[in-house]
């Protein structure tokens, strides 16, 4: 995890991103996702790809970032997804 700098004090921590994923998933799928951890395998969440894109869209709006489509292929765990999000926030 990268240390916060003066320019981005509002940038959420890694835990904050995980919490953001959980609440976005709950809003989109209308189901509780509090059990989700970084090691959770995305396919085991039983969220379809349309739903996953909606969740990612919600995170993008909150973080004011845009994740290129090609970075979304081949994601396995929530950790992979949060890595992509963090990398995008840093750039």
């Amino acid at each position, binding site marked *: 995890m990268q240390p916060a700098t003066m320019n981005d004090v509002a940038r959420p921590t890694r835990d904050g991103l995980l919490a953001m994923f959980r609440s976005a998933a709950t809003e989109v*799928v209308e*189901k509780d996702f509090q059990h989700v951890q970084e090691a959770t395998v995305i396919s085991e969440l039983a969220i379809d*790809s*349309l739903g996953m*894109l909606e969740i990612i869209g919600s995170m993008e709006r909150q973080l004011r970032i845009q994740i290129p489509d090609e970075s979304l292929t081949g994601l396995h765990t929530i950790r992979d997804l949060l890595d992509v999000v963090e990398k995008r926030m840093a750039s």
Partner: protein
Amino acid sequence: MHSRPKHVAPTLVDAVRALADDRVRGFTFVRSDGTERLYSFHDMAVEAERRAGHLAARGLKKGDRLAMVLPEGDEFVLSFLGALFAGVVPVPIYPQLTFKNIEAYHDTVAHIARASGASMLLTSASTKQYVEPGVARVESRPGLVTVDELAGDVGKAGVTVSPEDLAFLQFTSGSTSRPKGVMVSQGNLAANAEAFMIHGLDRDPAVDKGVSWLPLFHDMGLIGFVVGPLFTSVPCVFLPTASFVRAPRAWLDKIHEHRGTITYAPNFAYALVAKRLKDKEVEGLDLSCLRIAGCGAEPIQARALRDFATRLAPAGFDPRSFLPSYGMAEATLAITFMPLREGLTTDRNHIGQELVDCGRVFPEHEIAIVDEEGRRLGERQIGQIVTRGPSVTKGYFNEPELTAETYKPIADEADGAPWLHTGDLGYMVGDRLFVCGRLKDIIIIRGRNYYPSDIEWAVSEIPGIRRGNVVAFGAPLEADGEEQLVICCEGTSGDASAIKDATIACVASQFGLTVQDVVVAPLASLPRTSSGKPQRRKTRQMYVEGTLPRVRHEPVSSGIESDSQGERNAIQCSPPR
């Protein structure tokens, strides 16, 4: 022999060449980062010619098949046109953009490459790695080439293309079987483009502009927004499908910014906008420019369109711009369109449910409703929808039996010219078509026919069930037993027994039917088509085999499969609207 179209060029190649002097108007592609790039019609013609030269230089001959996996809209469209200019038959394959099941994707790529006999697969540098393992499974080893490798100018292909030539293969999975390739000819493209762009939409090249996020590997996006507009000189704006799903407002923003006049989407997209868009997101939008908001490709629910219209009324959206329609890849794209400015019109079916008027057939085309023996049925009688005319394709590539089953004469007709048997059920009121569902999915219980979509829509209204994720079918509960009604749904609340009770009560009160079994499955666990529709046949098969996942009734600690609160919501069934 059908007469040639009167108002458009005989082939798409001729149509694009005829636009080559237009350096101002063209197609605008929005990338996922929001940047836009305009290719004028002139640029497109030049680039198509250039890519055609490369394909010919690489040994592709007229009639050879070229599989294409190109997620970027501009690369897709330019390569598709390049193939047509070379007389090569493009075979679009959807790109991998899911978060699971890469194995199944490799199977699909291998199946389509094999079934089409593709001699080459064209992809992009960033997509190559996801396609390669699929291509490696194909015995004939088609060459794998990226668009970057088609750099520079290697001369023209010098191929002549005529209306009888096969233009491309549209692989379609339907909800029942492995993808099969519909053979769409140049003549079919011209006929359908004339039908829906001119007779259907009365397009005005000086005013009209299309806006679409529809996938280009699917008939609605490709024929509706690339082929039709190129034949009729209408500029279009394309945004990535994923951009729309991530932020539904992106679709409306592009209509607003570009003053779009024509857009199209399946029912679910209108529902998604109505559900996701916040009041403040509607502020500042001006959609008064939009004259056509088409809807098709899946059963249309009047409620989704009404909710959309209500949501977007402050933005100046005119509900008369709704244009419900009916079509399928086997008929190139469009079969019926509502007349302009009539908007949403509905009818009550035999059980009082509301069905959307899908309009009338185009000039030079015919539509009829037939019974099981192939005899024409009268007004308001439900049967299979059949159609024929210059837009109807000749059949499936290398599938003579399936083609003969689907394209055949109807019983009570002397001339015996084949009709496309759509496999969809519907009825006519005057010249208007109402679609009821798929023939194969009809549920027969004690000699009476029930339409699964009727039951599914009713059950979808129950709280705790994810809307649209309900499948109803008939299945024997024991070997050689009578068919019984089974309902599978994806539960959101997790209280499976409450959902079960509510489903049984709902179906009993609305249809007078006893549900023999209700399966509450975890979210996103029911099998789906590539466009996200639940697959009834596959679900039924899994049910019969006992492989459908079920939410356990007991509270479980993981919380994945069941909500441990066990709190019973007030569940009730809404009356039919």
